């Protein structure tokens, strides 16, 4: 286990470093940040002076060296847009995004696993059809659109929750639901099919013939064995949520997280902020993956790490 974790940490560092280098190269090929930031009416001399003061005139390898040596210390420079250390701006927003992701994942798990199990117990029943169809809808609805519909119905029409912003649980409900829609759909479907698989196995007959209660058969035997695909998919969903799905939802709900920050940084060509944002997100995603790899072993002793 020890060497395995060590190896995974080395891989994770390599992934984060690779992502950072890639982002540096991409953002430096996107055009002239000085022109992007100054008013359209600025004269060429003003733009040139600004470019010089920001170091945009240095050769790309000089800029890269400066970037790399500072980045290893967690210093991505000041945001060009908000004029504060970029790393601090990202870290300030990270807990808010994680909060959203945590609640959405929680919602997804507590809603979809029972639904999937119920659907699997009575395949082709009316309940199964409702679960399957609504899961498919949840998977395929654009979150942007779903978010707006939820706002119009529950905030504008019925005043149950807030349209946007951050602060109370009433701010949290609609964005979490929007973000949870896709994972709910996917986890319900995978739970359903994994459970149907397990329930048709021979050991089910054995368990029942031993006289075990149906609840125990389903929960302790079938569901436990079905958990591996469910956990895999849930983990993948969490990584996807953190790495980008929050962008649309945070924009629609004016939720002050790293997704909204990323989109504003990109629109303003704020190179340090884009780099810091991508770096932090990459770190979180690789961490989540690392933790889940370790968790697999706990769910399934057949998985070995040598």
């Amino acid at each position: 286990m020890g060497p395995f974790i060590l190896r995974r940490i080395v891989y994770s560092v390599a992934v984060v470093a690779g992502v950072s280098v890639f982002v540096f190269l991409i953002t430096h090929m996107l055009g002239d940040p000085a022109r992007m930031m100054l008013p359209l009416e600025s004269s060429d001399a003003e733009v040139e002076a600004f470019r010089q003061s920001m170091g945009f005139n240095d050769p790309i390898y000089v800029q890269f060296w400066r970037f790399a040596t500072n980045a290893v210390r967690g210093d991505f420079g000041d945001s060009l847009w908000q004029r504060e250390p970029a790393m601090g701006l990202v870290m300030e927003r990270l807990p808010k995004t994680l909060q959203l992701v945590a609640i959405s994942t929680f919602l997804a798990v507590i809603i979809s696993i029972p639904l999937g199990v119920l659907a699997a117990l009575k395949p082709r029943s009316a309940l199964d059809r409702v679960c399957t169809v609504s899961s498919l809808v949840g998977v395929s609805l654009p979150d942007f659109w779903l978010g707006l519909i939820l706002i119009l119905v529950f905030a504008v029409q019925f005043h149950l929750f807030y349209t946007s912003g951050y602060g109370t649980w009433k701010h949290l409900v609609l964005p979490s639901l929007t973000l949870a829609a896709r994972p709910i759909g996917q986890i319900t479907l995978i739970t359903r099919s994994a459970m149907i698989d397990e329930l048709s196995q021979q050991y089910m007959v054995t368990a029942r013939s031993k006289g075990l209660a149906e609840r125990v058969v389903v929960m302790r035997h079938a569901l436990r064995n079905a958990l591996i695909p469910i956990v895999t998919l849930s983990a993948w969903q969490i990584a996807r949520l953190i790495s980008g799905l929050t962008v649309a939802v945070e924009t629609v709900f004016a939720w002050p997280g790293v997704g909204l920050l990323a989109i504003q940084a990109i629109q303003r060509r704020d190179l340090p902020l884009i780099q810091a944002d991508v770096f932090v997100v990459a770190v979180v995603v690789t961490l989540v993956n690392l933790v889940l790899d370790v968790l697999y072993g706990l769910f399934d002793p057949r998985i070995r790490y040598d």
Partner: protein
Amino acid sequence: MLRKVFTLFSVLIVLSMALSGCAGKAAAPTGEIVIAIGGDPSTLDPQQADDGNERTVNDNIYETLIARNPKTLELAPSLAESWKQLDATTWEIKVRKGVTFHNGEAFDAAAAAFSINRVVNPDFKSEQISFFSTIKEAKALDATTLQVMTDGADPTLPTRLYWLKMVPPKHAGDADFGTTPVGTGPYKFVEWARDDHVSLEANTAYWGGAPSIAKVRIRPIKEEVTRLAALQAGEVNLVKGLIPEYVSQVPVAASTEGLEFTWIRLNCLKGPLTDARLRLAINYAINREELAKSLYSGYAVPAEGQLLTPGHFGFNPKVKAYAFDLAKAKKLIADAGYAGEELEFIGESGRWLKDKELIEAVAGQLRAAGLNVKVNIVEWSAWLDLLFAGAEKAPTMQFSAHSNELLDADRTLSAIYHSKGSQAAYSNPEVDAAVDAARTETDLAKRADLYHKALQIAYDEAAIAPLLNLEDIYGMSKGLEWTPRRDGKILVFEMKFK
């Protein structure tokens, strides 16, 4: 069917959640105004960024020496009581007595001189520097007398000062000045939660009298539909930048002519449009009234034959909008011997309201006149590169938008009409001479004449194709009394609840 099932599904989930809590209506604001804007301020240092979101907040906290009348846009005293030009490069300004910053620092001529010198200092790297590039330095002669020296004669100095906010000399040196603004204005800073809100409270000791609204909360909501929803749900009282389609859906809508113009840069120096007849034909072939009506539901007006409004110094009242005249356009095209050469029309998408639709509609009108226009929508950075690449690389036609907040013709003419302008693709020595002379002409009547002349020449030669002046539209909650300002400033001091 799918939708219905899903809606039912969502309703069930939400209802079950709502039952566990006590969800209720958002409380109606009492003495607090909530304003939704398009994005978070870049900083709250009023001298650093060129950013409309920062201005919306700081216009309520800080003040300038010189203000503008909200209706006529004429210069008016603010922290300055009077100003006069002593000689070509020296101005003398008398500042208001007895004004203090919110933290107790005194506002006097020394503080004013400090504020001016701070923003023009090259080491400060202000993004606003292009507004103040002619200012050399300022010094206080005594507590109320300020002298401002310019680099060469600059008759536009007072219009520049309308943009220059006064900062407290002591606190401005603190590291946290950009997040804890302190001004002399009607509202005091309380709190800034990034990307969520900025809160202000009334400055009851304000020299201009106490404001009517006690608290202000400014919220960045990037998504237009969400801003609209927040207004409809009663969570905000004022929404900036409403799109015309939503006007019928808000409790109260108010609009005013804005300062932003859409226009087409025509390459007068290279390619088919070197023939002025074709450029005139383009201008006559565009039906601006129709564009304003169909695309902007009437919340836009045809631009005059210049990129200025009557509120701008140097506006030429004789230069009217090119009237739509298809027959005349067709005749000019025939006279020019146009043989169907392709006219590339570069545009971008998403930066300005309905920009792409406008470009396509204009291209359609030009095609109807017989011009072979090919629209090419490019990515923003590519669009910027083309705009500033100089006439050699400039496309035949390029869509753009221009806004001149200083309200003085110099900024517009220097950038667009002067052959050395950063966005120019037009050259006429007479226009250049007039713009150059006006920049240092201190006799206001003569200076206005110079601009009138330059604009008339550029109009006759169709140097550019002005399109529309978009109106600023605001959505307001019932009970809020306010008339939007033409300079786009949102001053809560001018608002009250019925």
